[in-house]
């Protein structure tokens, strides 16, 4: 048995996942813990815009916000990355420059993945050529659900190759997989096929990220790691809007995978509206009063 592969199939207990996930929400985070946690959430954010109506101006304002989320808050980190369609990678790259904010691009016929492999590869190569640091691909649910796991694995391999040095995140689109067992299987499949990160959702399908699903994927990462397969990153995406919820996710990461994953290198939030709620909470910690909606910038 190859110790670098965690290809064993463990049973999954959805009831237990829900209970355990709920238990993280009872942690009470106060004062310094809260302030540090909120800053960490900012640093872990993949600030995202994935709309048909995205414009150059929208991308520019998103990038500016990524570099400096709120000038009124001292010691605020920049976000981890901006996440855009391949068309906007060049512009985004130009805007963030050498700031350290990375540019992630969804590619491989996001969000459905319903095109030929060649077309997906072209999509990925285009984004990489434009300078994307990270590629968020979608798992081919059609093949996966029909049981053709080899095809899915080969596709991830091929895209990983096309990524060159860019990091590959594999979006499982858990809302379409139908069961916790399937999500566990898809997580292991993606990790074994070369994913650097596994990601819950595109944000285009409901339900998107939930705590039980994220916990399941964190446990899959843990078993992959403990079996000698190395570290894999995790990105819940879609549906996380409240700062408090994000802090509960951090508790879950801390108590499931430990310190090593508590950095933007290994854990990300894929979100657009979350950042503003976090900023408002941070403003409140600074000023002692609740910030209004207009106290934070919309992009």
């Amino acid at each position, binding site marked *: 048995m190859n110790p670098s592969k965690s290809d064993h199939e463990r049973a999954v207990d959805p*009831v237990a996942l829900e209970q355990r996930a709920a238990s993280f929400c009872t942690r009470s985070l106060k004062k310094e813990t809260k302030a540090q946690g909120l800053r960490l959430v900012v640093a872990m954010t993949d600030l995202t815009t994935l709309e048909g109506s995205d414009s150059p101006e929208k991308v520019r304002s998103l990038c500016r916000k990524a570099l400096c989320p709120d000038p009124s808050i001292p010691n605020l980190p920049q976000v981890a990355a901006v996440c855009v369609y391949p068309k906007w990678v060049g512009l985004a790259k130009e805007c963030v420059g050498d700031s350290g904010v990375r540019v992630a691009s969804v590619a491989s016929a996001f969000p459905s993945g319903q095109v030929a492999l060649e077309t997906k590869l072209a999509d990925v190569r285009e984004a990489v050529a434009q300078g994307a640091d990270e590629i968020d691909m979608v798992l081919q649910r059609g093949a996966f659900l029909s049981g053709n796991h080899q095809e899915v694995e080969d596709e991830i391999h091929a895209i990983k190759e096309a990524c060159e040095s860019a990091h590959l995140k594999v979006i499982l689109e858990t809302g379409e997989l139908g069961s916790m067992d399937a999500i566990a299987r898809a997580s292991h499949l993606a990790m074994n096929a070369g994913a650097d990160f596994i990601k819950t959702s595109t944000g285009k399908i409901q339900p998107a990220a939930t705590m039980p699903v994220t916990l399941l994927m964190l446990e899959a990462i843990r078993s992959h790691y403990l079996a000698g397969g190395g570290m894999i990153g995790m990105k819940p995406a879609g549906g996380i809007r409240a700062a408090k919820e994000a802090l509960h996710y951090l508790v879950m990461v801390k108590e499931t995978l430990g*310190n090593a994953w508590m950095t933007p290198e290994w854990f990300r939030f894929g979100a657009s509206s979350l950042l503003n709620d976090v900023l408002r909470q941070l403003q409140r910690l600074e000023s002692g009063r609740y910030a209004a909606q207009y106290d934070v910038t919309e992009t």
Partner: protein
Amino acid sequence: MTPKTLNIEAPALDFGEHWEYAPAPEGTKVEIAARYGAFINGEFVKGHGRKRLTTVNPATEETLSEVLIANPKDIDDAVAAARAALPKWKRLKPQERAKYLFRIARRIQERARELAVLETLDNGKPIKESRDVDIPEAAKHFFYHAGWADKLDYVFPGRKARPVGVCAQIIPWNFPFLMAAWKIAPAIACGNTVVLKPAETTPLTALRLAEIFQEVGLPPGVVNIVPGDGTTGAALAAHPGCQKLAFTGSTAVGKELARVNAGTSKRLTLELGGKSPHIIFNDASLDAAVEGVVQGIFFNQGHVCCAGSRLFVQEDVLPEVQQLLRARLHNLRVGDPLDKNTDLGAINSASQLATIQHYLKLGVAEGASLQQIKTKLPKKGYWCAPTWFEGVQPAHVIAREEIFGPVLAVMSFRTPEEALTRANNTPYGLAAGIWSDKGARIFDIAAKLKAGVVWCNTYNRFDATSPFGGYKQSGFGREGGRHGLLPYLELS
């Protein structure tokens, strides 16, 4: 299935102090009187007893209050009050009796925060548990039994149900308030009257419950509460004026009570100790199983009669289970019970801590490998870090005797038959846990386990509607559900 070989060099997970949770203490202030007496005939009385016990906060060793040790004269008074209240109470319209129980339940909910804090102060259990388990479950018991009060003639079809009479009830220190509810609710719902003795180290919440009885106007004498020590318990247990004795506590005391009451017509139910097994099969969800095992033994510092203190793991998944167990245990937070993030509170008393430490030494002497998580324990108070023993043999004393603390004995098995033999090889039979994804196996094993409760893919699940009780030296009689009414009814 090929055994999973784990890479021994595989890096372990690091759960250090990065992003440490700041203290989050529960703020409610609770008033505690300097002295308490007994609650007899609807009044708080000083009592005849000259001696007093001091009840301390086990997390700080600070004295909380001085409480009467009720003497035989006090017991006489309490039993007389209960006897005097009986005729009216049992003839009260059942709907009216139910109303009192509903009121008690509502009042418990209204005063939940105060009761939870007081319970944590007196017992040492984490506020998370007293707030989310003890107090809400106690309220549920009164609600549930309020519903039975006017339906008793239909519980056992074709038979007429009448109350037993005056019930003596003796409860332990591990769930002081919840056990009072478990005992009092079915007794008074069935039309009996009660004399209850709370545990020596945890009398405060039962006396608070007496305040609630006053608030809701429960008729005097229906419930009497007599605090005290072992002498009080002995006097109450042997009192000829009681028709029924219900006891929850240690097997040794249970046997003594059975001896004392042998040859009398007094009814007896005993809920005693346990050494409950968990069995993890190789097809189980190991993450779920490890979580269940951790909750099963470390809930309430392991001061649980049905604590899953013996763990049997199928050989081929043992290394993985140990790895997961270790990772999980490093996230248990031990310390100030009033902190909302505390998972493990204080050991209830110095004597219980001494008992636990005796077993820890014994385990090492027997050749088992002692494992503890590194954690800073407070200087004052009674503390024990979460502990597990690896390399335990079924013949070890730590695998046979009840430790009643946060100590798990990890063992392995190869075949399901072996698991069953080992799990059943105990003088106790209170609870058991099975972890498997295979339905057929679960039903097969569950039917063959000699335990009052068998939990499948979960553990420590309680509900007022579900009976709880033991086999063998874990006692007899059931509490909760329809079965829990039987000990409090005469059927004709």
